[in-house]
Every structure is written in structure tokens, then in C-alpha cells.
């Protein structure tokens, strides 16, 4: 089959690879009908996240049709079922899964011992996302092997196009959880850094959950326009001081809820701290660039919440913990517990509350995939979200 394969920094190719096969009784194989490129894939493309090996298949936002089912998954899945595959692989049985903390499933990361060395504990296995999270082949391919398939799937009805359902795999529940983590009150101002696909879903979720005011921050005009279309007030970091504008919009009090939908590759702004990060990163003394986190901690209203769906991989410098502690801020973060939210979100799509396909700007074949990584990363051609049709 054909698949998008990681070969090294900014080197992804469309290769011919062996078809996946059932390896464990709980496995299933799906024929991929749609998949997408995610901002998290860019961290791998740019090789900010360690733990990739040449030959790894990319992709964790996938949906398709079940074509083969292992013996122990048969009760839950059958050939022909239409499924969206969550990016977190879950067993459904461990203590964390039972609590709904699916992204920290204790059993599905087959390299759990390595993860435990890096993070103290294992976290869930993820598709197409480094050997720290199991090294499972991803879904930017014609076929995908789904481990623990009896639990790791979202059944979706026929008659709704892929485009409306695909993002149940990751970015829609991710934006939703980012907003839910804020426990939004009708009096809240929610400020969201980053208007990429995750930021866009976060804006929609905050509006649906009834925030008084949603403020979106980025620097790319098309992304800001899309944010505005979704009901947000926008701040362009190249034109305005983020802190000043946020204070203006909240009568000097700062937003109650701040969401980081940017992650570890925050763009340098013309601030001293951004310069500091670049030098430290170039000299390997720091792994991530936490400019957004610093800004959030500083501007957030006392007793407010910092919600962090943006991905970080390692060590961060100069985090103003004094501000966080003294202002009594709550920090909530994590990879998304996808299946915890998807039943509810599927209903909201079916009822027409939201149509997540608004974010798609490019639809391409697998062969065009490698080029689209670059277009998406460099935000060329108005690119916001790329869907691939194998």
C-alpha cells in the first residue's frame, strides 16, 4: 500500500510499504477513506519531538471502513462498519480508561517503559507519533491497523460526509476539551492563542459553551478572518500588543480563561524572551519555546485558568511560576481524552449545532501529501487544514 513515511527532518515521502496485518486478537484493519495532517505532525516534520525513526508511518486523524476484525474485537466491530479512529489508543479497561482519562491509558503504550523514563509514568499509545508513545504506524496511508480496536474506535452513521466526521478523531474533541477545561461561565472572557485548526475548534467550542467574549490571537490574516467568522474578537500579534489589547477588552482585569493552542513552536515575537528561547534552543539548552505560556500566566486574571492543549515535549525555561502561584491560577492540560467527548459531539454535529468541515482548506491525494506538509507548515496558499483522500 501507499503511505506517508517519515525519513528525517522535513523529509516525508509517499512510499510503498507492506499492507498491515492483524497481529493481535483485539486488532482490526480499516481501509482509510479520509485522513488529515495535524499541527502535532508538524512537530515531527520539523523534528522538535524526539523519538521518531526513519520508516515510521505518519498520521493520527483517520477514518474509514473496517475490512478485517481480529477474533477478540468481533463483538464490537464487524466488517463494513464505518469508524473514526481516535488518535489515542485505548484499552477501555484500565483504571485510567475507566475514569475517562483515555489519553493516559496504562496499557496501550508498548514502549511504556521508555515513556516512564521520560515522564515518570506511561501515557497512552498514539498513532503515528514517536516511539515514546508506542511507535504505532499511523493512518496517512491506504490501510491502518487499529490495536485494541474493540475500544479504539468511534462508530459513525452513514449518510454524513467524511468531512463532517473526520475531526472527531482529534481536533474537534481537542478544542472542546480545551474549552471544557476552562469550565466556562456566562461571565467569562476566554482568550485563545493560536488560530490553527485546534484554535478554530476551541473558538467554536467556547462560543457553544456560552462564553461572554471570545478573543483569538494569531498573526496570519486568513486564520484571524476565520476566527472572526466563528464569533471571536481578534488580535494580530504583529500589529498589537497582546497584553495591552487583552487588558483593554476586559476593563483592565485580564481574561478569566486563557488557552494555549500554539504549543512548543511559538513564533518569535520581537520580545526579549523570544530571543532568549532561540539562543537557548540553538545551543540545545532548552527544548521548547514557551512564549505563549509566559504571556498567559502574566495576563490571566487572578483565580483564573490556563488551559493548555498545545503540545510540549520537554523542558521549558523562565516560566513565571511566581505569577501562577501568587495569582492562584489553575493549570489544566493533556492530550485529549477523545472518546470521553465524542458521543456528545457526534450528536451536536448530527443536530446541526456545528459543522467542523468549515476548517478544511485543501483536499489532496496521498502522493501530494509530502508537499502539503510544507504548504501547511509555511501557511502558504491560505492553508489551514489539509485532508488527504488515499
Amino acid at each position: 500500500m501507499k503511505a506517508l513515511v517519515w525519513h528525517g527532518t522535513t523529509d516525508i515521502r509517499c512510499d510503498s510499504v507492506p499492507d498491515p496485518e492483524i497481529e493481535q486478537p483485539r486488532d482490526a484493519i480499516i481501509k482509510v477513506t479520509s485522513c488529515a495532517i495535524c499541527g502535532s505532525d508538524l512537530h515531527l516534520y520539523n523534528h522538535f519531538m524526539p523519538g521518531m525513526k526513519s520508516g515510521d508511518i505518519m498520521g493520527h486523524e483517520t477514518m474509514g471502513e473496517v475490512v478485517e476484525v481480529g477474533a477478540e474485537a468481533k463483538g464490537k466491530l464487524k466488517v463494513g462498519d464505518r469508524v473514526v479512529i481516535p488518535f489515542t489508543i485505548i484499552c477501555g479497561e484500565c483504571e485510567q480508561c475507566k475514569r475517562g482519562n483515555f489519553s493516559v491509558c496504562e496499557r496501550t503504550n508498548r514502549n511504556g517503559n521508555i515513556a516512564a523514563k521520560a515522564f515518570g509514568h506511561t501515557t497512552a499509545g498514539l498513532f503515528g507519533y514517536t516511539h515514546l508513545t508506542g511507535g504505532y504506524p499511523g493512518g496517512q496511508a491506504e490501510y491502518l491497523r487499529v490495536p485494541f480496536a474493540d475500544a479504539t474506535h468511534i462508530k459513525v452513521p452513514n449518510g454524513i460526509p467524511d468531512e463532517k466526521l473526520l475531526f472527531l478523531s482529534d481536533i474537534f474533541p481537542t478544542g472542546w476539551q480545551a474549552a471544557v477545561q476552562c469550565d466556562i461561565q456566562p461571565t467569562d472572557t476566554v482568550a485563545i492563542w493560536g488560530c490553527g485548526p485546534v484554535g478554530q475548534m476551541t473558538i467554536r467550542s467556547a462560543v457553544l459553551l456560552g462564553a461572554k467574549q471570545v478573543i483569538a490571537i494569531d498573526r496570519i490574516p486568513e486564520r484571524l478572518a476565520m476566527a472572526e467568522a466563528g464569533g471571536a474578537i481578534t488580535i494580530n500579534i504583529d500589529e498589537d500588543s497582546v497584553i495591552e489589547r487583552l487588558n483593554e477588552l476586559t476593563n483592565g482585569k485580564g481574561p478569566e480563561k486563557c488557552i494555549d493552542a500554539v504549543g512548543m513552536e511559538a513564533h518569535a515575537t520581537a520580545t526579549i524572551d523570544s530571543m532568549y528561547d532561540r539562543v537557548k534552543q540553538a545551543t540545545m539548552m532548552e527544548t521548547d519555546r514557551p512564549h505563549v505560556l509566559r504571556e498567559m500566566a502574566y495576563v490571566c486574571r487572578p483565580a483564573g485558568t490556563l488551559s493548555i492543549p498545545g503540545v510540549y515535549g520537554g523542558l521549558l525555561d523562565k516560566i513565571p511560576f511566581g505569577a501562577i502561584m501568587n495569582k492562584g491560577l489553575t493549570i489544566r492540560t493533556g492530550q485529549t481524552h477523545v472518546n470521553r467527548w465524542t458521543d456528545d459531539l457526534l450528536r451536536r454535529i448530527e443536530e446541526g449545532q456545528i459543522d467542523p468541515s468549515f476548517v478544511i482548506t485543501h483536499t489532496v491525494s496521498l502522493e501530494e501529501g509530502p508537499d502539503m506538509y510544507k504548504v501547511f507548515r509555511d501557511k502558504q496558499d491560505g492553508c489551514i487544514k489539509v485532508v488527504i483522500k488515499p
Partner: protein
Amino acid sequence: MRYETERTRRRGQADTATDTLARGLGLFSIALGIAEIAAPRALARALGMKGQEGLIAGYGVREIATGIGILASKDPTPWIWGRVAGDALDLATLATALEGNNPKKENVGIAMAAVLGATALDVYCAQTLSRESPHPLPPLQDYSDRSGFPRGVEQAHGAASDFAVPSDFRTPEALRPYTQPEAPRHPQPSM
């Protein structure tokens, strides 16, 4: 990692290369500056320029300042031109070391060749950057109709208030707002 500025954001692939070059020159400036400040004596000896240590260290400070300017400014163009001027100064200074009977003339020649190479890159980079439009271009696509809400933003606002935030995701009682006035019908500035 991409070096990106307000004005260079939209240039195509070839131009991303110029950004990378500018960034590379910025890092090179800082590295050279550090070397000049850290080891002015060794450099002066190698170039037969004993007694000029202070000048070399001073040039190091200039290199670092330029490097930081290139990396941190929104528009690196004037800073790259600054490097070109700095190169000329370096060449003029090195040329003085060619006079008289300096036994290290050969080293000075090598250093001048290296500076000339860097100068060529600097000039190329500065010229390419200068050719660009100083005005940010308008959005590439119009997404102003993409609300994502089939029934519109007004209807969507608070449409999910039936959602019960799970207990482990709720804000502790003490941190909740003191009063909860009526919510406005759609997101709007609080002023």
C-alpha cells in the same frame, strides 16, 4: 524551524531560503562575536595584530549586537545591511595588517578571503530582502463566511449549555465568579 517576519511571511518557497540565510547570518554574527570577545589575544597573535585586542573585542560586541538585531527584529533588512558595513570595516582593518613586515600576512590573507565570502552572502541577502514589498499583503483567501455554525453565530452562542462539565473538570467553588449576571446573546466586548 522557520525564520519568519511580518513582511516576509508570504513569500514563496524560494524566499523561505532567504529567511533561512538571514537567520544563519544572524547566528554566525553571534558566534563570531563571542569568539572575538572570548579570545581577542589569540586572534591578535594569529593575525600579527598585537596591541589591537581592544579593537577586536569591540568588533565582537558589534557582531553580537547585529546578530541579535537580525534574529529579533521584525524586519532584518537594515541589520543585514549593517553586516555589509561591518564587513567593509573588518576588511579595512585587516588591510592595515598587510602593511609593513607583518610575519602573519598569510593568515591575514586567509581571513580577508573569508570576510569577502561572507560579504558576498551579506550583499546577496540584503539585496534580496530589499527587493520585497514593505507592505503586508492582503489575506490569500477569504474565509469570512466560514463560521462553522450552520445556524449562525448568534444561534450557536450558548447552544451547548446543556453540557454538564464533568466533576473532575469543574472549577473549585471558591474560584467561581461571585455573581453571575445574565449572559449577552452573543460574544461581544465587555466595554
